[in-house]
């Protein structure tokens, strides 16, 4: 289909730009004074987190829209977004520990933001499992939408409660990466990387959406559900 081809093209451009981002990050962006080269993973880790959060927000938004207008296109988009979000949150969860080991001295710590992203991943996986466990397309769309909305409402609460929990059990010595005041050249690299990851998100979702549409047409009848 046309959409799938466009999605593939956008993904390829995104991947090429990702390589360019790393050329810039490694060769043309200054080395961070305290963390050294380990900090370079920052340009992969943070944009991946951004894409995963974007994916979850769009899952929630499409879920609301689906329940209002009952148009299966919103459901397909939410499903595509959740699948892509799972991949990005997995990227975030693998690059995180790789960065944490040399800098924080541990692979994993129950830091509030870390725990939040772990649960973001669990929500995506639960969402996809639920979709896999319902046969009827209309029912699947409704159930997934209910879960998607609840998930979006849940995330701030998880962040807040885990944050409170952490203050009770303070971490040993957590050297925090100084994010607030980022030097200009690093900021540019980061922003470019954000754009590239958003592009990758769009490319992946378009391909996945096209696939879901073909599957929907294949399953006949399932065109307009509920």
């Amino acid at each position: 289909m046309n959409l799938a081809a466009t999605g593939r093209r956008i993904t390829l451009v995104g991947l090429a730009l990702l390589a360019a981002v790393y050329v810039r990050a490694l060769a043309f962006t200054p080395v961070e004074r305290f963390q050294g080269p380990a900090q370079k993973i920052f340009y992969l880790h943070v944009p991946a987190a951004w894409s995963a959060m974007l994916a979850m927000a769009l899952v929630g938004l499409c879920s609301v829209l689906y329940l209002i207008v009952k148009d299966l296109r919103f459901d397909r988009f939410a499903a595509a977004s959740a699948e892509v979000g799972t991949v990005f949150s997995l990227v975030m969860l693998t690059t995180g520990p790789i960065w944490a080991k040399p800098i924080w001295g541990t692979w994993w710590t129950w830091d509030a933001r870390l725990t939040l992203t772990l649960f973001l991943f669990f929500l995506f996986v639960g969402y996809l499992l639920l979709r896999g466990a319902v046969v009827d397309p209309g029912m699947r769309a409704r159930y997934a939408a209910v879960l998607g909305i609840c998930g979006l409402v849940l995330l701030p609460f998880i962040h807040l409660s885990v944050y409170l929990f952490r203050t009770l059990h303070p971490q040993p010595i957590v050297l925090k990466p100084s994010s607030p005041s980022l030097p200009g050249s690093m900021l540019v690299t980061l922003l470019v990387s954000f754009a590239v990851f958003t592009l990758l998100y769009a490319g992946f979702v378009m391909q996945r959406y096209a696939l879901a549409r073909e599957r929907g047409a294949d399953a006949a009848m399932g065109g307009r559900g509920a």
Partner: protein
Amino acid sequence: MAEWLRQAWTVARKDLVLEFRTRTALLSAVVFTALVLTIFNFGRDPTAVSALDLAPSILWVTFAFAAMLGLNRAFQLELENHALEGLLVSPLPRVSLYWGKLLANLVFVAVVEAVGLPLFVLFFDVPMGRALAPLVGVLALASVGFVTVGTLFSAMAIRTRFAELMLPVLLLPFFVPPLVLAVLATAKLLAARPLSESFGYLKLLAAYDILFLTVASLLFRHTVDE
């Protein structure tokens, strides 16, 4: 009493009469709770970790699992002889059906907790003192938090494949905020800290309850209507 609330009570009473006549699920849940509390006792080294340090976590993990057991039962009941369809064709507002199931689940969980709490005090030699009254408040708020989302999800989970496994996978992330807040508040109470110190946790618990009661009341009809 408002009409919809009266109808909700009718649904709840029906469920509770059914439950108290057979008592299978309730007794199983009570025995389960006692067994988990017993097993936890062997999950720690009594010379290394004092019982009181672990007590709040033990109490809440046990009650969270016990609540999960009760939730599986709520709609399972209605699957036999297509009883759910009977409820759905009756002139019963969906909100009343949800609140009826919610109330029945709350009573179920409350009975289990009423047996579990004295056992917990006995097994772990917890100095209850004046903490009992506020602890009952924490129990009430956290149980509402568990049951609110749980009732909504159990209506979906029973009609999926692998229903028994699907509910915990979807629900456990949603247990995190009430669980964390309840553990924090319980720890403060058992340490005989002034009530004002756990007041913030209680307010957050109440916020979680109110928010999810609203969201679930709005979303419930999408889980049962075609």
